[in-house]
C-alpha cells in the first residue's frame, strides 16, 4: 500500500484537477446547453434548425476529436486561452449538446393536456408557463441532467491525454512507479471517480425528493 501512503497528496491534487475540469466544463455546458435548448423548443423554425444542427454536430463528434480541435487547432488560428480552458471548452460544447437534449426531453415530457387545461381555465401564457409547464418540466429534467453530468465526470479523464495532471494522469504515473501494485492503484483511482459519481446522483436524488409530487 506504499503507493497510497507516499502519494496520497498528489492523488488528491489529481482529483482536485478533475473537479476543476468538471466545474468549468459543466458550467459552460449548462449555460450553453440551456440556451440551445431554448432555441430548440422556440416557435421560430430557423432557430430550431440551428439548434438541431448544433446538437447533431457536437453529439456525433467524439470528444477526443473536439479536444484535438480546441487544443491543437484553435491556437493555430490565434485563439488560445491556455490549454486548460481550451480543453474545457471542448468538453463544455460536447456536453452542451447532451444538456440540450435532456432539457428538451423534459419539456416534451409534460403532457399536452396540462397546458391546454391551464389555457382553458383562463391562464395567460406567462402564468401557464410559470405555474404549470415549467415546474413540471424542471422535475423531469433532473434525472437525465444528472446522468449527463455523471458522463462528464468520466469524460474529464480524456484531459490526461493532453497532459492535464488530473486523476487518470496520476494513475498512469503511479503505474510506472509501482508496476507490481497496478490492480490496487486502478481500483483506488476508480473508487475516487465512483465517489464523485455517487455524490452527483445523491444530489439528483435529493432534488427529486425535494420536488416530488405526493399526489397519484
Amino acid at each position, binding site marked *: 500500500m506504499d503507493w497510497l501512503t507516499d502519494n496520497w497528496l498528489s492523488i488528491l491534487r489529481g482529483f482536485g484537477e478533475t473537479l476543476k475540469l468538471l466545474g468549468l466544463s459543466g458550467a459552460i455546458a449548462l449555460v450553453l446547453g440551456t440556451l440551445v435548448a431554448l432555441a430548440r423548443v422556440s416557435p*421560430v423554425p430557423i432557430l430550431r434548425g440551428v439548434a438541431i444542427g448544433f446538437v447533431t*454536430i457536437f453529439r456525433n463528434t467524439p470528444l477526443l476529436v473536439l479536444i484535438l480541435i480546441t487544443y491543437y487547432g*484553435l491556437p493555430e488560428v490565434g485563439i488560445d486561452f491556455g490549454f486548460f480552458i481550451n480543453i474545457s471548452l471542448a468538453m463544455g460544447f460536447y456536453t452542451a449538446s447532451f444538456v440540450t437534449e435532456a432539457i428538451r426531453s423534459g419539456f416534451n415530457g409534460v403532457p399536452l393536456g396540462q397546458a391546454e387545461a391551464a389555457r382553458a381555465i383562463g391562464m395567460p401564457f406567462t402564468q401557464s408557463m410559470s405555474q404549470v409547464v415549467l415546474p413540471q418540466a424542471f422535475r423531469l429534467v433532473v434525472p437525465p441532467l444528472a446522468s449527463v453530468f455523471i458522463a462528464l465526470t468520466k469524460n474529464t479523464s480524456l484531459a490526461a491525454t493532453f497532459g492535464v495532471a488530473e486523476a487518470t494522469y496520476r494513475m498512469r504515473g503511479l503505474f510506472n512507479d509501482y508496476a507490481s501494485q497496478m490492480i490496487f492503484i486502478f481500483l483506488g483511482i476508480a473508487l475516487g471517480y465512483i465517489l464523485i459519481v455517487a455524490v452527483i446522483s445523491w444530489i439528483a436524488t435529493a432534488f427529486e425528493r425535494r420536488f416530488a409530487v405526493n399526489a397519484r
Partner: protein
Amino acid sequence: MSASTVLYDAPGPKARARYRLFGLLTVIGIVLLLAAVIWRLWSRDQLTADKWEVFYTPRYIELLARATLDTLWIAALSIAGALVFGVIFGVAKLSDHLPVRWFAWVIVEFFRAVPLLLLIIFVWFYAYDTRLGTIAPLVIALILYNGSVLAETFRAGINAVPKGQVEAAFAVGLRKSAVMRIVQLPQAIKIMTPAIISQCIVALKDTSLGYYILAAGLTTTGREIWRTFDNRLATALVLAAIYIVLNLLLTALGRWAERHITGARPPQALADKPGQPTAA
C-alpha cells in the same frame, strides 16, 4: 407543428411576422459568424493548399480509408462482444441465485462507473508483457464498458416485457431457461433496439480513445498526418467530419432496422429513440 408542444400557442399573423423577423436575424447572424470564421482561417494561412492538399492526394485518401475501416472493425468487434457480455450479465442480474445476482451487480456497476480511458490504460498496461498489441486492450476495455451499459439496458428490457407473457410461458410448461430464451429475451431486444443503437454510436465514438495507446484507427492516423504536414486544425476538422458522417449513417441504419427488422414499435417502449441523448 405548434400543436405538438405545450410551450406556445398556434401563432397568429402578428406572431408569424415576428417569427420571420427573428428567423431573418438568425440567418444574418450565422452568415456573419461563418464569414468571421473563414476570414480568421484565411488571415492565419489555414486555407492554403499545403494544409489541405494531403486530403485530396490519393495516397492519403487511401490511408484515411484504411484507418476508417480499422475504426469500423474495432467498433464492430467491441459492439459484438458487448452485446454478448450485456446479454449474459443482464440475465445474470435477474438470476434467482443470490450470489450470481450480486456478482453480476458488482461487475456491471463497477465497469459502468469507471471512466473508459482509465480502463483502457489499465488493460493496456496490465497486458503489456503479454504482447497483445494495442487493438486487443482497446477492444477489451470497450467490451467491458459498453457491455455493462448494455447489461443494464437488457435488464430493463426484460423487466418491461409484460408479466402475462412470462406467466403464459410457464403455464404452457416451459422451463425457466426456455422462458428467458424464447419469450423474454426476444421481446426485450425488440423493446430495447433504439437504446442498443444509441450505445453502438457511443462505442463508435469511443474507438477514438485508441489515440492514447496509439491503437490503429482514425485518430492515430490523423496524428501521423499532422506530424508529417503540420496541419493540426485541418486534420482534426477532417476527422470530425468523418466521424459525423459515420455516426449519421449508423443512426439512419438504426432507424431503418427499427422499422423493418423489429417491426412496429411496441406500445410501451421505454427506451429513447436513436436520436436522443444517452449520456455518453
